[in-house]
């Protein structure tokens, strides 16, 4: 099962490597990891999507807490979180299908950020299911390149 966890760490050199090293040496699988500073520049927030059962999740959270630079760790169940991801997709395009790709972009509220003779680059944002849906539809035109930021998430409401 997939879990999204949010980790608040001290914004210090080497922190990312402490966290990623922990995951690899303990055999936890990272699906995605996004990191950046928070409202407080001395702290960073990592949003990590991991695969595992409940006991794996408990162990991951405890091991993350054990790192001296970790301030807070919390599990973000989908119902209690707002989530988003940004994806850039370069789709093979020609005069015939350019129109159709543009329509798909509109449906998914994607922005067209680059137009070239043989390709269109779309910027997609949103929840995983939306992003996956768009990518699936675009696949038939041929995806030349694709990059994802990985999921970021915050707790809903005033908690946090």
């Amino acid at each position, binding site marked *: 099962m997939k879990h999204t966890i949010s980790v608040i760490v001290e914004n210090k050199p*080497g922190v990312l*490597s402490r966290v990623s090293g922990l995951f690899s040496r303990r055999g936890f699988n990272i699906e995605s990891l996004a990191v950046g500073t928070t409202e407080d520049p001395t702290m960073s927030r990592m949003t990590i999507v991991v695969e595992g059962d409940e006991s794996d999740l408990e162990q991951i959270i405890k091991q993350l807490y054990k790192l*001296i630079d970790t*301030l807070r760790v919390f599990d973000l169940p989908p119902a209690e979180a707002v989530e988003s991801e940004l994806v850039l997709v370069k789709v093979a395009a020609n005069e015939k299908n350019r129109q159709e790709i543009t329509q798909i972009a509109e449906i998914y509220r994607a922005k067209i950020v680059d137009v070239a003779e043989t390709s269109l680059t779309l910027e997609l944002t949103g929840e995983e299911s939306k992003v996956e849906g768009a990518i699936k539809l675009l696949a038939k035109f041929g995806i030349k390149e694709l990059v994802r930021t990985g999921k970021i998430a915050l707790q809903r409401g005033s908690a946090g």
Partner: protein
Amino acid sequence: MELTGAQALLESLHREGVEIIFGYPGGVVLPLYDAMYADKRIKHILVRHEQGAAHAADGYARATGKVGVCLATSGPGATNLTTGIANAHMDSIPLIAITGQVATPLLGRDSFQEADVTGITMPISKHSYLIKKTEDLPRIVKEAFHIARTGRPGPVVIDIPKDIFVNKIDYKYPDKVNIPSYRPSTEGHPKQINLAAKAIQAAKKPVLYIGGGVISANASKELMELAEKCNIPVTVTLMGIGGFPASHELSLGMLGMHGTAYANYAVTECDLLIGVGVRFDDRVTGHIARFAPNARIIHADIDPAEVGKNVRVDIPIVGDVKKVLQALLAKVGPKEKHEQWNEQIAEWKKKYPLAYKMDGEIKPQYVIEQTRELAKGRDTIIVTEVGQNQMWAALFYRFDKPRTWLSSGGLGTMGFGLPAANGAQFGRPEALVIDFAGDGSIQMNIQELTTAVNNRLPVKIFVLNNCFLGMVRQWQELIYDRHYSHTNLCNNPDLVKIAEAYGAAAWRVTKPEEVRAAIEKAYAINDRPVLVDFVIAKEENVFPFVPPGQAINEMIID
């Protein structure tokens, strides 16, 4: 006051109460060694290999309960420390490892003797620092000692570039540590304590299973009170040896792969297992699904990540085990005798005692028993290497006090014994310090005989020489069809001559009737190390033995 980084480091160590550091000089730590030339408040012990420095600091910490400090230069000096750091990490020993680093402008350029020490030590230390500004040095040293000795203790690495030692700062040592992200919880949750107390009251067949956490929390007294108050038999892990007296009637001795039959049967049959300062290591549990199958499990430990890591736990308690035991003592009621249970255990003890057969050859178990008998009344510390020597000592020495048994548990580091014995002797100069070694492991850090000779340390090294890498040979005999692949060490050099060349007293013993006199003679030497080469029965095995993958009640008993 204005100090250089090197002076500031020595000043800070002094303020942390450091009396001794174990180290080896080199290029980038020259400014520090120069500062030591002027400031002699802290004793520096020159070892002969950095691994020896780390193990000596570790042995010092285990014997005294203080933080051990070791020091090495950059690159190879630092990488030589890493085995010792990993060893301390696995056994939760408070250690500060100070490493020199290339000057900050040279960092990351594959400079001469550069190694990414914080990167290398990340998975084998509790925490690590690379100091980039001399101004940060006092705060970092303060934090490092705090982290090493609080919560679950462990090693902290401080990597210091050469220019940081040279730059001057206006020195001020902080009074307090402020690490918002590090606040270990020490008090067990009252609700959990209540649940545990109730479970203890209700149990018919309880067992206390205790480990190194009891030693590091100095909780032996509280453990004894609980065991006696509730009549609960106690089994110890390798790291918990000495935490409960082996001579006590409630003692079951060690459990696990080489545990006593009665400890392993008791754990398998018990209805309540009370784990205190333990981590349900694979060498303890054997086949994990069949470990304590009938028991509810209470697990008290300072490290929340250990609770529920290897086994399901019914009543977890996170906290300092001394405080947890005190809280439990206040809650558990009148004496429950557990008569049937203790009778059953007495029967197992009678039926399956620890035993060995004497014949014409020297038996290692006999050497160990005589070592203990002849040391009676003396403050004694036993150190071991790793392998059969370690297991025989663990089983047959019968330890009664904490911090008298120093052994590499989690990492299983051959070569730990001699340097750790040196460190222990520095920390406890009056104690009789004995290192039980094998003919394989003694050679892994034999250069540390120099350190012992130069400092007139009267450590006794009792080599149980079976001409084999004994424990591996035992596995080959029992599991690999007697294929003694690369475990025959009969082409070893003459250990007596080697020890003598180093300046130690040394001789060889080949007959059982010479053993006692040899031990007495060794005890009488007080001005230098002694190595006694006991030529023992070659293919003697350590029993009981739980073959890997089996449940712990499925032992080979002899």
